[in-house]
């Protein structure tokens, strides 16, 4: 794997990873998501990167594992007093404050919309990561079409969104997940997310807080 990666590939790889991480935080692990992670060498690949999702994740009976993951997801992100997955809570101490409205406005102004019957929160971590997954996909498309100016503009938006919406809280949030979760899956996924986002921000020239170790 020594070949040079083109801009299009980079954007696409990032996009996919954003979408994967988004899926982790968006809702409980579904049977399909679990199977795809277990079957297609994802676990092994992560292991190669030093990310170990644990024995249970690899071997436990599927139904039992899904139950366990779902209970942990609830404990972390749904039941009171877990690791709140909402930007507004970390920034304003309440659900659905300005950051949520601003995130929604950001999506709109980039030409994206959430489904009509969307009952979630626009500033939930999974939604914000999904949005970045979509933005980077647009970037990849632009590169593919050779539209460098457009790609650069999209990258500016990525940068703006990361800076405005994720920089200030996401690392504290991920630290919190790592600190309180009982399952290696969420701990390691939080770690992966943290490292990935650090890299993203550094690469896009966003200065990280001193607190991000």
């Amino acid at each position, binding site marked *: *794997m020594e070949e040079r990666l083109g801009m299009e590939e980079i954007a*696409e790889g990032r*996009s*996919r*990873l954003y*979408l*994967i991480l*988004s*899926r982790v935080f*968006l809702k409980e692990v*579904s049977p*399909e*998501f679990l*199977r*795809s992670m277990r079957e*297609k060498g*994802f676990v092994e690949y992560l292991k190669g*990167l030093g990310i170990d999702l644990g024995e249970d994740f690899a071997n436990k009976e599927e139904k039992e594992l899904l*139950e366990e993951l*779902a209970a942990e*997801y*609830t404990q972390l992100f*749904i*039941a*009171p*007093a877990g690791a*709140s997955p909402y930007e507004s*809570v*970390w920034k304003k*101490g*309440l659900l*659905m404050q300005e950051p949520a*409205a601003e995130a*929604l*406005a950001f999506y709109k*102004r*980039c*030409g994206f*919309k*959430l*489904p009509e019957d969307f*009952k*979630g*929160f626009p500033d939930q971590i999974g939604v914000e990561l999904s*949005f970045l*997954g979509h933005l980077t996909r647009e970037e990849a498309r632009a590169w593919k079409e050779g539209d460098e*100016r*457009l790609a650069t*503009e999209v990258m*500016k*938006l990525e940068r703006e969104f990361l800076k405005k919406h994720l920089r200030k809280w996401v690392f504290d*949030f991920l*630290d*919190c997940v*790592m600190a*309180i979760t009982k399952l290696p899956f969420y701990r390691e996924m939080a770690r992966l997310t943290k*490292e*990935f986002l650090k*890299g*993203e921000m550094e690469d896009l020239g966003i200065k990280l807080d001193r607190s991000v170790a």
Partner: protein
Amino acid sequence: MELTRRNFVKLGLTAGTTLAVEDSLGLFARAMEMKLGGDGRLVDPSEDLTKGRRYDKVVPYTCLACNIEDGGLAYIKNGRIEKLEGNPKHPSTRGRLCPKGNAGLYHVYDPDRILYPLRRTGPRGSGQWKRVSWDEAISEVAERIVEVLDKGHPNEIMLKWGRNRIGGALVRFMHTLGSNTIINHTSICESSKKIGMEPTWGPDIETPDFAKSKYIINFGSNILEAAYFHNPYSQRIMEGFAESGTKLVTFDVRLSNTAGRSHEWFPIFPGTDGIIALAMGNVILQEGLADEEFINDWTNVTVQELKEHYRQFTPEDAERASKGPFGDKGGISRHDIVRIAREFASVKPYCTTYSYRGPCKHAYGSYNEKCQMMLNILVGSVESKGGYCLPRGMGYKQPEPVPPPGHEPSYLSAPPHYPLATHKVSHLVPFWIKEGRQKVKIYFTYCDNPVYTNPGAEAVWGELVRDESLIPFFVSFSPFMSETTRYADIILPNAVYLERYEPESMPSSLWPWLGARQPVVKPMGEAQEVRWTLKRIIDKVDPDGKRGMKKYWNFSSPEDYIRQQFEGIPGLKDVGGWEFIKKHGVWPIYGELNPATGKISDALGFEIKAEYGLHKKELSRADMRGARVDRRTGTIYKKGKPIGVRIKGKNYVGFGTPTRKIHVKVEEWEKYGFNPLPVWKQEPWLADMKPDEMVLTTFKWNVHTQSRTASIKWLAEIVHSNPAWINADTARKKGIKDGDLIRITSGVGYMVTKARLTEGIHPRVVAVSTACGHWAYGRLAQLKLKESQPFWSKGQRIPVPAKPGVGQDPDLKNVWWNDRGVHPNMIIPAIADPIGGSQAWYSTVVKVEKARPGDRYGDVKADPDKHYEFFKMGERYAYTGDLHRKMHPEVKINWEKLPKPELKIGH
């Protein structure tokens, strides 16, 4: 390999390609093509939707941060509540909310809200949950219901509510299932007040005309801060001070802000309001200050009878009682009793009493309530300008068809040994379940937190709901993880009050109104109105309508239900029905708020006038057609029903009693061996106190409800702890200094808290507020966030705390207090008024001492067995108990022939 950027990209490009991420991929759709504009820019920054107008819309609603039900306006921007204010069209509220109301948006945006259905996965109370879909949760609940129904015992399904303002759907649900096991919360609140009043004049509450009153005697009510209708009423009392020269005299064990704002305050011994009112009544009667014509015309007794009856209640006796069994300082002198009685009567009928809800929270609280009400009857200030008026409410409808009650009577709902307590005796329910008096298989809890708010708390209700053999299935509709809900098996999160449709009407001023709540924002997450949840449960229980249940749930949305409730109401119909209320929040609109006067003015600019003398409305010819007048009583009957009363040749509608007169003498009480006339009885345990003992009472702050506001930031910052108020003299004698740790020991347990020394309390009383000291109900209420700091503080990394959920809330950095208070209910025994069924909150005998070695602030211990003993002791005062007759030697009836306790479908 390492976690490098290159590896991340490769991870996405290789392993990541096969993952099933449709959920995140499908989350966003493109609304438009992404391409550069003519100016070379990708997006137009001016499209930022967060800028622009100050508010997008203003939505009227009815507040339910507490039960006063004020009219509010929600200012909405980008789908978010920016602020809440009073509705200036509301005749009671007049544009003003109290602090709890203003802070109402915190109920919506509380980060500790429950937003999805949860199923318990660990042992009860372990805090282990799994999110489930609505469908799954409802199917499970429905299955459990079907199991019970198919065995033929619908009463084994119990529903208990705390604050039920949803317009009838809870009762509809229970009756649809055929269950009568419907339990409320009234016995920990005002039930004995209601029972003191209802048999006497019909309604369960009064609406005094404070603004026009010249004299108010306030018995145990913190009316400027916390009592019923405190927001509308405090406005009227201030108006009275400014414009009517109103004098306010307050009897309260504690110097509340109301007492402080009164012209006179008397710190009386708990529960002696009744004897003081009787002594004043005696003065009024013997000195000829009564409105004798009113008494003779409008009551079922004569002045002569009353004079004879009242003679026994002397100011001397009242003075003695008011000081307490040891003649402490405080109380009221006989001279003041006489003086106040004269002053009160001298301005009749522009005078009124008020009581909420000190006097009635005693074991003979119903008597107390009646005694104070009598003062108004004696001087004839009933329904007069400036007087003691009837409540003016308005009704809405129940969608047709309405299910009939179940077939079987429920012991828990209508306990046979409390036949007069028609507002139930709910706080004793755990003991009765434990004793097997009625079985419960499913317990639904709605807007209720008995493990915190009821006497005994964890040691009584906690004992009950922890025990799966007593409560096999426990379902909560709560949007918050309360002390009670944390024990639930399934949580079906309700929308909070600003997200719901609910009809309202409250007699909170002399202008009757109808109003409603409507969602000012959409329910957060998957929270859903309980009415809709109930419908979905019924749809699952009776999918094909074969059980005959579906027909009672014939509405297409929560709004459709409320629309049906407001259909066809005369007057409202003409202006647009529900749509009118939706738009204005309230109907009728009497006028505009005049900012200069703070009052509502009519179209011509004059202050709107109240109607008085509702009982003196004359019956029309048409009303009288076919009517019959009882010669002896004057009661007018039509089709067997009393519709009015003939007095001096005039046909009046009268009062809501069987004779349409005021029943000073309540015969129904006598039937069960209670005194039918106004009397005062002191709890024997107060009369027999030992010199080193004190009485524990509780109270409510202006910024808090009993249990639902401790996590509201604006309010918690104002009040977050509850030191025990204790008289400075008393404390000195016990060697207690301000701020000292003290131990308060009752017959069932003890608590360790801090002392707050004050002159503003009766020397024999220790008072602890109930709003603080949570052990659930969100992180702020428990001060859990304070236990650990954010991850970074002043440039220094703090080790990752072991407590979950820390560091998230930036407001927590501003929490400057580290005292969450100590809750007293665990050490308060559950005892019921044998007449009205009310919990005797204000008569717990305790010992107060300096904390012992090893005592820690916040220690609370209570023994469930001791609670049980107290409950048994309390039942001995019920009419079936062995102490009842001893307490009523003056009642001359055939005591051998008391009615047998009867299990009935009833209240």
